[in-house]
């Protein structure tokens, strides 16, 4: 397959399916041609790929992952104060007080990121007039059905994965888990950061509740990231050592066909991409 597919495909929100009800050729024509692979060394030039995440979305992910790790590593020793690793970790930061300041720095950056992301969503809703219900991360009834189908596939009861569209249910889960997590951890974190201000409005017990919420939800977040998310993007034997899509922004057609068959088929139908040869879709994966 020497042919290059030069479609720039919109990211989290815009898909050709929802881009204002335009015809396929309009969408394809509007897309800006790019030389695939030229700017991303991870994707060999001959590998046909499409854009999955826009630069602004990739940057958001990078900021999120940095601030998440920073906050997690400075916060967890406090939660597990008596563990063997807690005190040494704290002392490498220069003590509890300094760790607290570092934690707040990352937390504040993450909250700013969240505000930016809400603005990003609002921009698409208000300026580009895309209904949130039509955004590809919005949960649908189809997702529920696909959970059953996918589990059946895992158990060998189905031969193929469900025809996932741009985002499969487990990817939507990751997005909304972060959404929920930031509301819970960020909200409770602000109460803990400014307890005297918070108690002007809230009763005293709210600060105790905030501490439980902050600490327990953080554990859930850390476990979800290090077990679940890391499996999906690192440890999975199909993916190991790493899925670079969130950093390069591009996904190979082979992987797209494998993991997002619904979206692949739609793109082919719409004439955005040419179908892969029979051999390319099966068995062999490009990163």
């Amino acid at each position, binding site marked *: 397959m020497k042919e290059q597919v030069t479609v720039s495909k919109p990211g989290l929100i815009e898909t050709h399916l929802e881009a204002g009800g335009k015809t396929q050729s309009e969408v394809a024509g509007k897309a800006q041609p790019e030389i695939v692979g030229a700017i991303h060394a991870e994707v060999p030039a001959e590998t046909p790929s499409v854009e999955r995440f826009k630069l602004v979305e990739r940057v958001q992910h990078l900021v999120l992952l940095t601030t998440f790790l920073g906050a997690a590593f400075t916060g967890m020793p406090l939660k597990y104060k008596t563990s063997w690793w807690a005190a040494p970790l704290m002392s490498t930061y220069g003590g*509890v*007080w300094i760790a607290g300041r570092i934690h707040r720095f990352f937390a504040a950056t993450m909250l700013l990121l969240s505000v930016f992301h809400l603005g990003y969503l609002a921009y698409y809703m208000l300026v580009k007039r895309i209904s949130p219900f039509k955004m590809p991360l919005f949960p649908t009834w189809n997702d529920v059905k696909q959970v059953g189908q996918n589990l059946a596939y895992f158990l060998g009861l189905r031969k193929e994965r469900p025809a996932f569209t741009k985002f499969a249910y487990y990817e939507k889960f990751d997005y909304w888990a972060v959404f929920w997590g930031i509301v819970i951890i960020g909200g409770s974190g602000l109460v803990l950061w400014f307890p005297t201000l918070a*108690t002007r409005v809230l009763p005293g017990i709210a600060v105790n509740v905030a501490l439980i919420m902050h600490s327990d939800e953080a554990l859930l977040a850390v476990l*979800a990231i290090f077990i*679940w998310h890391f*499996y999906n993007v690192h440890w999975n034997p199909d993916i190991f050592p790493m899925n670079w899509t969130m950093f390069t922004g591009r996904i190979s057609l082979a992987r797209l066909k494998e993991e997002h068959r619904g979206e692949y088929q739609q793109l082919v139908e719409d004439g955005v991409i040419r179908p892969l040869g029979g051999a390319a879709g099966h068995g062999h994966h490009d990163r």
Partner: protein
Amino acid sequence: MPWHVNRVTSPETHVRRSQCVTHNARRRNGEVYDGTDVKFITNTSGVQALKAEMSGTQSVGFKKRPETMILLGGEKMKIWRTGKRLLVVVLWLAAIGGIAAITDLSISRVASAQELDCFTCHGTPNFGTTKNFRGEIVSKTVNKTKFEKSVHGAFLTCTTCHAGVDKVPHEITPANLKTARDACLTCHPDVYDTYKTSAHGQLTTQNPLAPAPSCADCHGNHYVERTKTAAFRADVPRLCGKCHDNRYEGYLETYHGKAGVLGRKDVATCADCHTAHSMMAVSDRRSTVAMANRVKTCGKCHEGANKNFASIAIHPHEGDAKGYPILFWTKLFFMVLTWSVIAALMGHLFLNFIRTIVEKRRERGGTV
């Protein structure tokens, strides 16, 4: 040996020293000689003469004036001798002051013969056990080195506190036990007065056997530590937790407790809010943790503390469904949420893993 020379350790030396003291006192009191006679005589000969006179073997011989005196003439000799003595006194004072300044040790202790006797038995390891005034079994061994390093080791001896214990075998009477227990108030009456009014003190003054701490329960008995150190401060919650274990556990779940465990020194410990010696029940209006006084108590550290802020549970127990129902249910909710979500994700992950491996084998052409 530098300054420690002053710590006379053998009983013999001690006796000699006290005899000297007696001599000097006698000389000062003029019991044996009057001043005019003594001042022309050197110290050594004076003592010898004194000894001789005291033993009655020889009559007083100092009235003979030395030949030098005659040679120099009366007045000049007097001035010269007085000047020399003054010089010696000044030099001695300077030397003592200098050594004291260098070693930074203002108190020197002279061990009494009696104390040495105590450690002969009580200084040996595993000397056995006895019962204290509460009937608790305690060790009879006292570590001499540790005692001497303690706050009191520098100037108290055993019988300062264990007054009346002067016979072997000791007479253990209720009076003796009481003396030891109340020994602290001899030197620290002000602290005792404060303590008496506290919740702890009210119990122990009414009934010494009441389950409430007196001085030694927090400060220790033989190895009293300085309380202003970071180490003692960090140890306070554990100390109080020996009885108030429920509160201690709750405290450890709050930021104060967690940060304290990891070495932050400026977080509040028990005594910062409850005070060290005048802790009282919340219902007592004088208490620093009474509802009316809490804003002020929290405000010591938390600028802008208000009434709601002061009602934050400072040592809550999440497991206490009746005492803290909101915290109990919040905790339960998050525990169920966390573990059900993680279990579901792990299950999904595991099934995915199995299927991925199976697919990979099939692709390689192997059998499943």
